[in-house]
């Protein structure tokens, strides 16, 4: 087991290096830099002034120098400072991760609460109106753009309910009520979207399990056995569900820029979106590396939980 984990982590090293190299070059290919972002709307600047500002930030140095410098600092755990507002990158990531983490957890919980019962019902009552209804509900969640669901929700609340959750973010330990009020609708939207994929996956894996011969026999025997079967089916069904969640964790933690924008949540998605628009290289690089590490670790964890769920699975 330990050996397996170590091997997986070692294999991640070249991937992470590749990620760092890609993001480092990609951001520098984009037209414009942070100096322009900071000056936009400003007075008149000569080319000399622009060059001086770039020199001060060190973004005029050769690519290789910048990359090596960055990696050396990174090895010491230093993510650098934002070019946009001079704040340490690591602090910004931690601050924004708080919202994203809470939103991700709430969305996953909501998705599980919606998706797993839906998927099981769908499978047990396969090809009945109940199944079709459940599948349509799930599939609808996949077919509406999230900004569209969010906008309709906000407009509906404004016009028909006359009430709107307050936009913004309040940490849960400071003001739990306001925190939940601000996060519940985004979590519902993301959770619904997420539950669509999960419900379909649950349905097909439960179906698959139900088709095993010994299960069929047990199923036909009576209520007690049915409970056993469901328990068994659920255990098996969890594996693909967890796999999907592992694959989606990156999206949940960093890809919710649209929802975060509409609900004014200071999450990772917006930090990234702004950093790209501001050409804030250290922030973009920092987020990308942190997100990639999280992705790799979570997927390792996912693989390890397989063994917990299904003792037959062993790692070599």
């Amino acid at each position, binding site marked *: 087991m330990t050996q397996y984990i170590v091997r997986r982590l070692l294999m991640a090293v070249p991937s992470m290096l590749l990620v760092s190299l890609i993001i480092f070059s990609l951001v520098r290919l984009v037209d414009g830099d942070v100096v322009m972002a900071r000056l936009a709307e400003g007075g008149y600047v000569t080319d000399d002034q622009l060059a001086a500002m770039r020199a001060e930030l060190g973004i005029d140095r050769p690519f290789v120098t910048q990359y090596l410098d960055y990696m050396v600092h990174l090895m010491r755990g230093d993510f650098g400072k934002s070019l946009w507002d001079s704040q340490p990158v690591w602090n910004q990531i931690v601050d924004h991760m708080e919202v994203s983490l809470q939103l991700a957890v709430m969305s996953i919980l909501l998705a599980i609460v919606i998706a797993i019962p839906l998927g099981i019902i769908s499978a047990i009552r396969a090809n009945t109106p109940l199944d079709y209804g459940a599948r349509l509900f799930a599939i609808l969640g*996949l077919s509406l753009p999230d900004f569209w669901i969010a906008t309709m929700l906000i407009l509906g609340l404004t016009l028909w309910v006359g009430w709107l959750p307050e936009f913004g973010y309040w940490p849960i330990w400071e003001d739990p009520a306001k925190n939940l009020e601000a996060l519940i609708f985004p979590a519902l939207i993301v959770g619904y979207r997420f539950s669509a994929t999960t419900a379909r996956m649950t349905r097909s894996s439960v179906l698959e399990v139900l088709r095993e011969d010994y299960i069929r026999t047990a199923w036909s025997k009576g209520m007690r056995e049915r409970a056993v079967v469901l328990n068994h089916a659920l255990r098996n069904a969890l594996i693909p569900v967890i796999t999907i969640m592992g694959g989606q964790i990156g999206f949940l933690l960093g890809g919710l820029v649209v929802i975060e924008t509409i609900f004014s949540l200071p999450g990772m998605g917006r930090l990234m979106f702004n950093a790209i628009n501001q050409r804030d290289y250290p922030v*973009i690089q920092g987020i990308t590396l942190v997100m990639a590490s999280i992705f790799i670790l979570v997927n390792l964890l996912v693989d390890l939980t397989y063994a917990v769920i299904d003792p037959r699975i062993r790692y070599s």
Partner: protein
Amino acid sequence: MATQAYSGNELTQRDRAYRPPALRFTIRLGKNPVAAASLVIIFIMVIAALFADYVAPYDPISVSRDTFQSPSLSHPFGTDDLGRDLFSRVIHGARISLFVGIVSVVLGVAGGSVVGLVSGAVGGILDLLMQRVVDAMLAFPAIVLTMALVSVFGASTMSALVAIAIVFIPGTARVVRSAVFVVKANMYIEAARSMGASELRIMFRHILPNVMAPILILVSAYLGAAILIEASLSFLGFGTQPPNPSWGLMLSGTGRRYMEEAPWMAIFPGLAISLAVLAFNMLGDVLRDMLDPRLRAR
């Protein structure tokens, strides 16, 4: 050897029906009511997209002073903030949205399949190296990749298309690679090799047809996703350029802004997106049921 057009699996089935599998498959698909409905929706949209210039009653970018007209006989979907006919814009929008969806998925899945196929079939060091690249791509936050790529190439329909395609590559590669491993374990591959078939021939003649099922399922699932990603990119200002009508742009731009005063500006493009995504997803569901061997009724 030359008569070996189909791989082992198919050969046994050929005794039952003398129809090429593609045709047989389509007929089976058409008998499923959900799949049939999806196919009809997709067919109508593709026709609208192909013949938009003839189907649309107005020039989709021609402005007029008849702004914010609610739906009527002369403007079935109403007009927008610049007096353009929304019906015509939605029809022309099909061209852009479907084009982005289909081409990006074809490119992404084809690219990913080649990577997965080569990686899985060749194995060894090459597989190890390619998988590290795929790992890196998977770990790379998709949103960063799309936004950065679109920024580099300049926001346009084509950039969005390429960016979406790249996002689909690593996932496809993973799925195809593991499918290849399953197929490779089969006896007929060993048989083909012992009969002197080249590796390339084995890869494309024997392995590829047998991993088509997961690829098809991926295609239908990705198609809906691609249309939604294009819409999200438009919301962020990274997608299709005005005055060109893409569904995502219509919905996220003025459609969203005037939703209260002129809801038709959002309803019709929104409906078009939902129908298209719904159709692709439902088709995908049916395909999965029919193609996934583990789910196939015995």
